[in-house]
């Protein structure tokens, strides 16, 4: 599998490690009243789609950047790759 790194171009998947669902970026507020329930859902509840899935990959043997990869879980086709920092900023995070 080849991941088209947004900065470095196409790189072999062996250089990357997989973390999991990109929704891990949306960490709940630990100080909120509902934190216990929020963290339960954050930790244990995942969608498991047969199709397009956004996931976090780490370019460990490259530039050490976190990526959000959109991959079809049925065909392994990668349709989109972006830096996780850009993805997080778009969702209102400051970094």
């Amino acid at each position: 599998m080849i991941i088209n790194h947004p900065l470095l171009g196409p790189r072999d998947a062996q250089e990357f490690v997989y973390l999991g669902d990109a929704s891990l970026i949306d960490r709940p507020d630990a100080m909120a009243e509902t934190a216990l329930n929020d963290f339960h859902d954050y930790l244990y509840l995942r969608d498991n789609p047969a199709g397009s899935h956004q996931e976090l990959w780490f370019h460990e043997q490259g530039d050490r950047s976190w990526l959000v990869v959109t991959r079809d879980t049925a065909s392994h086709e990668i349709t989109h790759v972006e830096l996780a920092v850009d993805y997080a900023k778009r969702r209102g995070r400051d970094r």
Partner: protein
Amino acid sequence: MSENLLAPLTALGKTVPVIKKIGGITISENPDLAIVSLSARMGTEQDLQNLLKPLLGACLPGPGQAQFAEDITAIWVGVHQWFLMASLSDHPDYADEINNFVTDAASVTEQSDGWAVFDITGDNLVPLLERICNLNSKAMSSGDATRCLIEHLGCLIICRESVRNFTILGPRSSAASLHHTFVTAAHSVA
């Protein structure tokens, strides 16, 4: 600097650098390289660029690139992160030197003893590089530099001259294994 009373060894454990000629390929260990890493702190990237521009004669390199100046080489290693390399004999306290120079614009760490440095030259190194890593080495031209795997080891591969001259930085604790890999690959293409 205090007088150095210890006898330094090269990455391959010798007192002089190992230089191997195999066919038209020369693999030489380069122990005379001071290496520091430079990480811009949040929001200080432009300050860092302004500071280093006179030193480099150019901007810090972008992704996958290196910048060669007279006595200093800068390599992009990650977002807002670079390696600076210079002659160790000319700059024995390079990390201190750079740290004093960039002050709060960046965090500096000493890297010299973490890496083994091999210069590989020859008329056509593509067949050798193809055997050891999965980079498109044929497409690399002078000033391309990237981190990649060689035999499961994270190495930094710097192209000094397209096809003919590469510098490879690898983890120093695996210097002998890396050297063996290069020599074996060189024998199979020589």
